[in-house]
């Protein structure tokens, strides 16, 4: 009976979700390394109102049964990892990635990892008294650091006192002073071959949900000319949200919402008429 009403309500809910997503994107139009979130719609399961064989009349174009849809829903919220514009800042701890790669950071003592494009790093003194490279929120940035006995370990870069930080385009981290240059390690970069499996979490980080094999989603990569990945010290990657795109989407969602609201009030009027059959 009130299929229109249910239908309109369901799709207004879905449109509201999309509107929230657009608001989130617009709010992050100036967030360093932010990746635009995208969602898409899908029509909901339909049902068939059964019709008897006698309904198979000449001129009918479709198989028997009347097909009834129930609105739309939002599916597949995933980040768009397109490159954002680079902005020069001149700060030695600002590092931007050019190309498809992510920094790896350690988010807790247990060693759990998260991924980010936000290269606005800083030098922080850790519990052991060493100066390490971390994100603005204090998560250590993972690098491949050479060990004294040979080989490398994945751990934060420790910057010695009195040295300044130099990051080369292939990720090599050097510490320089007036008299000496030391190689501290190479910032670990990961290429996301399954970007849809990256879940945006707080602090501008991406996480990989439990149950998904991390090696399937991201693979370690060393910047070179072939993979067109490089690091730029003194630059920050800006948000890849395009204001015009978001506004266009906003308009189209808002108009769709209006139309659905109109269908809702129209079906309300119809129910009113059915009620008023007998005054």
């Amino acid at each position: 009976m009130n299929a229109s009403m249910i239908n309109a309500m369901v799709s207004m809910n879905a449109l509201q979700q999309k509107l929230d997503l657009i608001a989130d994107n617009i709010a992050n139009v100036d967030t360093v390394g932010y990746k635009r979130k995208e969602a898409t719609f899908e029509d909901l399961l339909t049902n068939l109102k059964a019709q008897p064989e006698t309904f198979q009349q000449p001129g009918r174009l479709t198989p028997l049964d009347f097909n009834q849809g129930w609105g739309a829903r939002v599916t597949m919220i995933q980040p768009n990892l397109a490159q954002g514009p680079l902005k020069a800042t001149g700060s030695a701890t600002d590092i931007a990635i050019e190309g498809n790669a992510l920094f790896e950071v350690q988010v807790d003592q247990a060693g759990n990892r998260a991924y980010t494009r936000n290269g606005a790093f800083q030098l922080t003194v850790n519990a052991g008294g060493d100066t390490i490279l971390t994100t603005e929120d204090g998560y250590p940035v993972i690098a491949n650091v050479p060990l004294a006995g040979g080989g490398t370990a994945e751990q934060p870069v420790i910057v010695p006192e009195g040295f300044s930080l130099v990051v080369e385009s292939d990720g090599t981290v050097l510490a320089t002073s007036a008299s000496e240059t030391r190689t501290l390690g190479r910032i670990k970069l990961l290429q996301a071959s399954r970007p849809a499996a990256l879940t945006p979490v707080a602090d501008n980080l991406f996480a990989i949900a439990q149950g998904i094999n991390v090696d399937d989603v991201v693979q370690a990569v060393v910047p070179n000319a072939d993979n067109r990945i490089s690091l730029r010290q003194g630059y920050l990657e800006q948000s890849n949200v395009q204001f015009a795109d978001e506004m266009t989407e906003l308009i189209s969602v808002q108009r769709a919402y209006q139309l659905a609201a109109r269908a809702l009030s129209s079906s309300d009027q119809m129910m009113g008429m059915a009620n008023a059959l007998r005054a």
Partner: protein
Amino acid sequence: MLRGLYTAAAGMTTQQRRHDTVTNNISNINTPGYKQANAVSRSFPEMLLRMTGVEGAQRTEIGRWTSAVFAEESLSIHLQGDLMQTNQSSDFAIVSNIEVDGLAFDASGKAIGPDGEAVFQPQAFFTVQDRNGEIRYTRGGRFTLDGEGNLLTGDGSNVLGTNGQPIRIPAGVSLDSLVLTEDQRFVDGEGNDIGVQLLISRIENPNELVREGNGNFRFKDGDGAVRPTAAGERFEVRQGYVERSNVDSAQAAVDLMAALRAYEANQKVIQFYDSSLQKAANEIGRIG
């Protein structure tokens, strides 16, 4: 008894169905690959009314009459939707304008064959396998790659390749690094085939498809006239684009109003019948 009372009631039900269908179109105005549905109404079979029990030489036939109307079918309009560029490497759009020898299809995708029969234009569809393993067809080309590299639709159906198997992108290969060729094969930056080709199905008469939701269509009783598309047929799959819903919002707004007002008109007719009945029941033959 007043026959028209039930005719008007059937009219209200029919307009309700039409309204529901238009509402569903409006709901899916932003759904990629959605095809607009139209509710088609049909009148009940005609009957001939004849007067009975009349003396003399009067004509006893009253005339032809149809007793009611019903919503017969929900007809999907399988016309091409607009393409929108998204630059997402997991988005694919089909542009389909398949030609059939000797037939010139009009803007609604219909042609009249040599024997006078209406023929509908064949359409190209992505072929997917839903979670129950059933084959489905869709135009919604917003796909995603799961962690294992399976190409999936929004509801988790596997997109099928020409070998009939779900498409799987090899580990470590990103869709960004692959290019879709004209014959729907994926090749890497150097032009090397990775052995995956999209299966695009050609549905001879798209009206035979039943809408299932989640963007998918199926044949009502399993099989219908469908075959893989061949080289040289007029269709194209574009990567980085989506096909927008083909719902016309202005048309939908007008249809909504039309259905509402037709519903109202039928409601008024019932009220008029009701007032006639009330006269018959309460006023005729009243004394005093």
